[in-house]
C-alpha cells in the first residue's frame, strides 16, 4: 500500500514536471510577443519595450526563462505583466469569488443526478426513463451560452430579480436580510447553469452503472429469495453501483479552478475563469501559466485521491 502511494506520487511529480515544460513551450513558441500587445500605443516606445523585456527576462533564452518563471512561482514572487500585482494574490482573490459557484454547483449536481439516475434505471424503458434520457441529451447538447440567455430572459421577466454580477451595485448600504437575498439570487442562476451539464452526464452514468449491477447474478438471487423490491434495489444493487462514484469525488477537484469561462463572462462574475480569459486576451503569460500549473496540480491531486479512495472502498484493488 505504502509502496503504491509512493510510486503513484513520484509518477505524478514527473507528470507535473512535463506539464510545466509543455505549457511553457506552448505559450512561448506561439507566434507573437507579449511585448507587442499594444503596438499602436504611442507611449509604448522601443526603449519601453526593451525595458519591459529586461524586467521580465524576455531577452534571455527559453530555458533560462523557464527556470526564472518556476523559481518565482515556487517562491511566490510571480507578478502579473499587466498590473504588477502578485499572481498568487490575484488568483486567491478570484478563487474566493468562484468558490460559492463551485460549491453550490457541485451540491446541485450530486444531489439531483443520483435520484434521477437511479429511478430511470429501476423503471427502465418506462415513460420516466425515456423522458429523463431525452432531457439529459437535451441538456448535454444545448450550448451553454444560449441556455444562459434563455434562462436570463425567463428569470428576469417572471421573477424580476437581478442576475448579472455578484451583487447589486450599492447593496452594501442596506440591511442584512435583503443583502443575503440579493447575493443568493445572483448566485443561483450561474450555479444552476454550471451544474446542468454535470447533472445530465452524471445521471446517465448513474443509470448505466445501476443497470449493470441490476443485471448481476447476486441481484437475481436476492430477487429469487423473495426480498421486497426496495431492499433489492437499494441494499443489494445500489451499494455496489455506488463504488465508482466514490472515486469520482477526487475528480471534481479540477472543477475548482476550471470554472466556466463562458458562464462567468456572461454573468460578469469575477471568478477564476474570467480572470484566465482576460489574461489570455492581454497575453499575461505569468497568469496563464500559473492558472495552468495550478489546475494541473488539482487534476493530479484529484486522480491521486481517487486512486486512494478506490483502494479504501474496493478490497480487490489492494494487492
Amino acid at each position, binding site marked *: 500500500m505504502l509502496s503504491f502511494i509512493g510510486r503513484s506520487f513520484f509518477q505524478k511529480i514527473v*507528470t507535473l514536471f512535463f506539464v510545466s515544460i*509543455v505549457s511553457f513551450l506552448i505559450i512561448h513558441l506561439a507566434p507573437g510577443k507579449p511585448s507587442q500587445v499594444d503596438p499602436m500605443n504611442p507611449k509604448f516606445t522601443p526603449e519601453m519595450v526593451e525595458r519591459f523585456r529586461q524586467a521580465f527576462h524576455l531577452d534571455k533564452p527559453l530555458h533560462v526563462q523557464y527556470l526564472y518563471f518556476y523559481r518565482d512561482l515556487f517562491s511566490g514572487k510571480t507578478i502579473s505583466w499587466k498590473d504588477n500585482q502578485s499572481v498568487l494574490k490575484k488568483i486567491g482573490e478570484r478563487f474566493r469569488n468562484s468558490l460559492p459557484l463551485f460549491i453550490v454547483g457541485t451540491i446541485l449536481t450530486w444531489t439531483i443526478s443520483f435520484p434521477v439516475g437511479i429511478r430511470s434505471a429501476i423503471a427502465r424503458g418506462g415513460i420516466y426513463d425515456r423522458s429523463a434520457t431525452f432531457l439529459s441529451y437535451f441538456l448535454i447538447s444545448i*450550448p451553454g451560452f444560449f441556455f444562459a440567455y434563455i434562462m436570463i430572459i425567463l428569470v428576469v421577466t417572471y421573477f424580476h430579480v437581478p442576475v448579472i454580477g455578484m451583487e447589486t451595485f450599492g447593496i452594501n448600504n442596506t440591511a442584512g436580510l435583503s443583502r443575503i437575498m440579493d447575493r443568493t439570487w445572483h448566485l443561483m442562476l450561474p450555479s444552476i447553469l454550471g451544474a446542468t451539464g454535470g447533472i445530465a452526464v452524471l445521471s446517465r452514468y448513474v443509470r448505466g452503472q445501476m443497470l449493470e449491477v441490476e443485471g448481476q447474478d447476486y441481484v437475481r438471487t436476492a430477487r429469487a429469495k423473495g426480498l421486497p423490491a426496495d431492499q433489492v434495489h437499494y441494499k443489494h444493487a445500489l451499494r455496489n453501483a455506488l463504488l465508482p462514484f466514490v472515486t469520482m469525488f477526487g475528480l471534481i477537484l479540477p472543477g475548482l479552478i476550471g470554472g466556466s*469561462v463562458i458562464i462567468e463572462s456572461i454573468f460578469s462574475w469575477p471568478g477564476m475563469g474570467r480572470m484566465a480569459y482576460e489574461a489570455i486576451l492581454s497575453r499575461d503569460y505569468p497568469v496563464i501559466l500559473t*492558472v495552468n500549473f495550478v*489546475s494541473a496540480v488539482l487534476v493530479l491531486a484529484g486522480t491521486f485521491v481517487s486512486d486512494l479512495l478506490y483502494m479504501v472502498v474496493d478490497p480487490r484493488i489492494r494487492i
Partner: protein
Amino acid sequence: MNVNENAASVNFVLEEPTAPRRTRLQEFWRLFRRNRLAILGLVFFVLFFCTALAGLFLTSGPDPVFDPAQIRLQEKLRPPLAKPNLDSLQADEVPTFGIYLFGTDDLGRSVFARMLQGAWVSLTVGFVAVGISVLIGIFMGGLAGYFGQHHIRVIHVLSAAALATGLGLLAAAQVYSGALFIVVALALALYRAQNGAPPARQMPLWHRLLHKKTLTVDTLIMRFVDIMLCFPSFFLILTVVALLPASIYNIMIVIGLTSWMGATRFVRAEFLSLREQDFVAAARALGLSNFRIIFRHMMPNAIAPVLVSATIGIASAILTEAGLSFLGFGVPPPHATWGNILSDGKRFIFDAPWLTFIPGFAILVVVLSFNLFGEGLRDVLNPKLRERQ
C-alpha cells in the same frame, strides 16, 4: 447404400439453415431501427449534411443565390418571414424568393443566408477536428497496444534528440550545424539497424550502453496521454486559438490536437485484448506482416468504440467551435458561423430575439442529433448493453 444415406442427411441439413441468414449490416440495421431517438438523430444528421453542402454552393462564388454579405442598412432587424420594402432596395439587393426567411440582422444581412454559410463551418469543424483526433488516436493507441511491450533504447533517444536538434537548427537557418546533427541522427539509426540483434555479452561497453533499455513504448505513450489530460481542455484551446492568427483551420487543428486522448485509450485497450486472441496468433503464424495484421485483422474489431466516441466527439467539437465564436475567437468577422451570429445578435435579444434563437436552436438540434445517433450506435455495437430478450 450407407454412404448415400449419409450424403442425403448432409444435404438435408444444408438446405434447412438453422439460424436466420442475415449479414452483419442487416443485423445492425434491425437493432438500430428499434431505437427511435437514434433514428431521429440519423435523420437530422443527414438533413444537416445536405443543408451544409447546399449552403456551401448556394452562398459562395461571385454571384451566390443567397448572398450572406449583402448589407442593406435600410432593412435592418426585420423579423422572420418579413416582406422586403421594395421601394428602398436596388434590384440586386432584393433577397431570394422576395422574402426574409429568417429575418435580417443589425446590418440588414439575410440571416437565412448567413445560417447556410455557417452550417458548412460547423460541419467541417466537426468532421476535420474529429478526423484529426481519431487518426492520432488510432496511430498512438495502435502503437501502444501492438508494439507496447518493446523497449526504447538509449540509442533511439539519442538519434531522436539529434534529429530534433538538427531540424530545429535548420528551421533557424543554420544549415551546416543542422545538417551535421541530421547526419549524426541518420548514422545512429543506421548503426541500430545493422545491429538489430540484442547486444551480446562480448560487445564493447559503449555498445551495451547505447542499447540499454529505458522505457517501453506503452509507458511513453500513456504517460504522454496523462500529461495531455492534465490541461483543462477548453482553456487550453482558448489559449492556443487566442495566440494563433484567427482562421478556421487553426481551430480545427487545435481542437483535433487536444482531443485525441480518448480514442488512444480505446484503441489501446481493444488492441491489448485482441493481441492475445487466437485469430491474431493464427495470422501471425501465417507470416503476415504487422501492417496487415493491424489494419486488416485487428482494426475492424477495434473500431466500434472509436466510431461511437467520434460521433459524440463531433457534437462536442461543434459546441466548442460555437463557444469560441461566441467569445469572439475563430473565424474572422465577414464569414458567418452559428456561434458568431448568436454572439452578434445577443445585443438585440429583446428587440430581435430571432438573432439569438435561430442559431441557438440550430446548434442545439445538430449537436443533439449527433449525440443521439452516437448513443444509438453505442447501444447497437456493444452487445453487453443490449436489453435482454
